[in-house]
């Protein structure tokens, strides 16, 4: 099947980019070239990141901080250097505002737990309210449900419009004087929706609530500027942005990190320990108990270098073009229904859809036989499936190495799926 492909403005030189990613050369199911469209679940890793990891273990590995030997000093410099890189990447006012965690989920749990154990004015208790949205990833729902259960606070949320956008029409009733924290995703991993930060932040500031932004699906794809967002906390995860698994980031405003209590206790996060009591190191170390993910930070630093060299704006433009093209091609498939915004405006590079009444498992499996990797299921956002009355979706998601030819392969593959089960 051929399709006259329009000229897409803003594409990256994907032939060059793809050479950096060893896995993209992989053939599966007897010689089918991998078409990897599961980037919202995790991204692939460029050679530069893989080499940074190996190089770290082959030459510099040591535990960090307090060592007086060469390897310990090198490892510390590499680890703290990665913090500098991440701080610059998100335009943090201070490197000390960048906390390394194990993933975005830990980052979000960290915020919830800091507030659960905080003193006034931050304390979350039975007189207070927590606000999230119906399109959150489970990792931005369950920590707040747990916090609400354990403190007696009330959990509220913004619902969704039929078009897959946040329904902010009752914003003044949802965010009230009782609200202590508003936590929401910048870009939805299931709907692709890019949310209007400003309106929410403005209302939160009006009532004196803290704002936590889940940027897991934003940091990999666009310029992230924590100062411009005006949030108090921003969480994201390394493995979705060309970095290794096992590392996440929480950025938080310095005053808050100073005022709020620690979460995990242990080595590295202390100032001084006696059996009777302990005092804690200043942030970020206060929130980094135990041996940190040293190699993973180095790998994330390499990822950030890699992305920055290509340019986040260029990456965003590329994905905008690819996403627009994919929306166009998929909308031409009979019986295909988008779950999420149908236009490329204010949306990320993840596209969820239903294909007639063919179950997403079957769609995904038949695509896999063609070498096309998509994700099927509730994408850790089951409330969205409940909202739209579907058990699951099929999701294709793009990244800087995705090509129009891969979009064509997807569209053709979906036609094949239709015929197969037709």
């Amino acid at each position, binding site marked *: 099947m051929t399709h006259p492909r329009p000229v897409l403005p803003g594409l990256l030189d994907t032939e060059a980019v793809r050479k950096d990613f060893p896995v993209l050369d992989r053939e599966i199911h007897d010689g089918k070239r991998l078409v990897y469209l599961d980037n919202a679940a995790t991204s692939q890793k460029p050679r530069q990141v893989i080499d940074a990891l190996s190089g770290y273990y082959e030459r510099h590995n040591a535990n960090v901080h307090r060592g007086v030997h060469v390897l310990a000093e090198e490892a510390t410099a590499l680890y703290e250097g990665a913090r500098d890189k991440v701080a610059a990447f998100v335009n943090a006012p201070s490197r000390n505002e960048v906390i390394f965690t194990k993933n975005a989920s830990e980052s979000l749990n960290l915020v919830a737990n800091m507030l659960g154990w905080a003193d006034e004015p931050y304390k979350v208790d039975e007189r207070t309210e927590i606000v999230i949205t119906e399109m959150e990833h489970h990792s931005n729902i369950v920590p707040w449900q747990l916090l609400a259960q354990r403190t007696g606070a009330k959990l509220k949320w913004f619902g969704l419009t039929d078009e897959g956008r946040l329904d902010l029409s009752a914003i003044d009733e949802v965010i009230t004087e009782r609200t202590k924290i508003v936590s929401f995703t910048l870009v939805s991993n299931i709907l692709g929706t890019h949310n209007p930060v400003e309106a929410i932040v403005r209302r939160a500031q009006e009532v004196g609530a803290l704002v936590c932004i889940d940027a897991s699906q934003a940091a990999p794809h666009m310029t992230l500027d924590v100062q411009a967002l005006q949030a108090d906390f921003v969480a994201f995860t390394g493995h979705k942005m060309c970095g290794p698994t096992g590392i996440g980031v929480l950025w938080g405003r310095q005053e808050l990190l100073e005022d709020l209590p620690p979460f995990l206790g242990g080595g590295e996060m202390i100032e001084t320990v006696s059996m009777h009591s302990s005092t804690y190191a200043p942030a970020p170390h206060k929130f980094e108990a135990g041996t940190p993910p040293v190699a993973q930070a180095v790998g994330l630093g390499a990822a950030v270098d890699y992305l920055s060299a290509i340019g986040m704006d260029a990456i965003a433009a590329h994905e905008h073009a690819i996403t627009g093209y994919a929306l166009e091609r998929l909308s031409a498939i009979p019986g295909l229904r988008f779950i999420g915004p149908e236009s490329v405006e204010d949306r990320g590079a993840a596209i969820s859809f239903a294909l007639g009444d063919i179950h997403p498992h079957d769609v995904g499996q038949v695509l896999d036989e063609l070498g096309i990797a998509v994700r*099927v299921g509730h994408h850790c956002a089951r409330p969205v499936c409940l909202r739209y009355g579907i058990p699951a979706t099929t999701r294709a998601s793009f990244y800087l190495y995705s090509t129009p030819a891969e979009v064509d392969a997807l569209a053709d593959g979906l036609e094949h799926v239709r015929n197969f089960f037709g």
Partner: protein
Amino acid sequence: MYQDVILDHYKHPHGRGLRDGDAEVHHVNPTCGDEITLRVRLDGDTVADVSYEGQGCSISQASASVLNELLVGKDIAEASRVQEAFLELMQSKGQLTPDDAMEELLEDAVAFAGVSKYPARVKCALLSWMAWKDATGQAREEKTA
């Protein structure tokens, strides 16, 4: 994986729909949202009917249809042997080549052998069979109670 037998059962399911039964169960596969409501009617020691309704992928749908075809009319002991053989096949991770005895026992259900290689799909194939086992147990308790 998608043997013609499976696709046939998916497109033309046997015995679908809910009819009278001695016990009803509702099973869910929480990770993928597959659901089945299944009723068993016993006639003495015989599986008189298995009726069902549900939503899910072709594998779970076809598997329920095959179950209906295979088990209805058998006596419970024999049906349980079939159920156990199917369970064994599905848990074999693609390592088991059904021998003649198993093929005879499982008939069309042998077509699911390929599914056992896909851990994410094994639960889909087993959904109705686990529901049947559960419902049959309940129905027998009813009768003996």
